[in-house]
């Protein structure tokens, strides 16, 4: 019975892993990884790691994979090109993986560990239960536990800083639809003159160039040490309040009606 469960879990884990690297659409790769994680959680249960298996399903297959699905849907289903960036990459890489597997197998089986051929000792009841894990975490491994929580905090702050909107970056470089949308929507919603002037346009494309010019003019005078449009050594804290609320009201106060000569790129839209 245990053999059957092991081989079922192993086949599921291997199939999921191969599907992750073989499927061409990243969205399907994420779903294949979910299958892999569920099969692996079954193997963890066979190893009497009940708490780890539950955490694997709840945290990994639940939360982390949802994050992956969101990013895969946000970035979009891009297909990888078929050509090799490095000549022979698609032939050499599986060979290197196979060589790594052979080397690991030789290393594992050649150690001469006596426990390799046994299931291990008879374990007490409650091995790997939440109670045992909690006792270990809070008594013997308290400092690694706190360090892990600190690491999670640092990673959360770092992700917010990295993925935050920085208008100076997007204005200095290329333009993206997200920056257009965040700049175009507040004057469209708050300015009645804009609605009168352009009543039938739903997206508000006419304000894009105006808002972009206003934002660029707003960033240019460098009141807080913001260097003019360069590739931003400036701190994100100096830029982020502008993106949140500083830019759009400034547009409303300075030039409420959209100048007719400024929205020529929005006419055809």
């Amino acid at each position, binding site marked *: 019975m245990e053999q059957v469960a092991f081989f079922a879990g192993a086949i599921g*884990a291997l199939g999921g892993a191969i599907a992750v*690297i073989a499927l061409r659409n990243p969205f399907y790769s994420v779903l294949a990884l979910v299958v892999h994680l569920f099969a692996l959680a079954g193997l*963890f249960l066979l190893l009497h790691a009940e708490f780890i298996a539950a955490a694997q399903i709840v945290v990994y297959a639940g939360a982390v994979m949802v994050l992956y699905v969101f990013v895969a849907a946000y970035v979009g289903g891009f297909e990888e090109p078929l050509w090799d960036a490095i000549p022979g990459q698609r032939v050499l890489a599986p060979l290197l993986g196979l060589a790594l597997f052979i080397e690991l197998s030789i290393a594992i089986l050649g150690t001469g560990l006596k426990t390799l051929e046994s299931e291990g000792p008879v374990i007490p009841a409650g091995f790997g239960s939440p109670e045992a894990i909690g006792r270990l975490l809070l008594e013997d491994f308290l400092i690694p536990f706190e360090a892990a929580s600190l690491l999670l905090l640092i990673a959360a702050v770092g992700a917010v800083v990295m993925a935050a909107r920085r208008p100076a970056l997007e204005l200095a470089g290329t333009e993206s639809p997200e920056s257009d949308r965040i700049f175009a929507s507040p004057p469209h919603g708050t300015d009645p003159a804009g609605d009168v002037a352009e009543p039938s346009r739903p997206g508000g494309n006419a304000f894009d160039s105006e808002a972009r010019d206003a934002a660029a003019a707003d960033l240019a005078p460098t009141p807080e040490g913001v260097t003019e449009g360069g590739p931003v050594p400036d701190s994100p804290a100096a830029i982020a309040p502008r993106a949140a609320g500083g830019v759009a009201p400034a547009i409303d106060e300075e030039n409420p009606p959209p100048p007719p000569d400024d929205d020529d790129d929005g006419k055809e839209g």
Partner: protein
Amino acid sequence: MDLSWYLILSALLFSIGAGGVLIRRSPLVILLCLELMLNSANLALLAFSRSVGNAEGQIFALIVMVVAACEVVVGLGLIVAMYRRRLPLDVDESRGLRG
């Protein structure tokens, strides 16, 4: 099941993940392959923990899961930032640091 079965399976999963990192060029799939490798290491840790009969190896696996979650968060933040700046989502195209 013997310990060696679990270790061989772990080695196989790790090799698949490493091969995936070498083959694929989308940064999202490369992160997925890193997940494969970390999970295979978790499997080996739990197998050794069962084999020794000491639950401390499971603490290692738990910490590995925490570190993997941090890696996912930072990596996905990088991918979102690349997408915002209209950089190509291809690790071969991002060669600004190549000497």
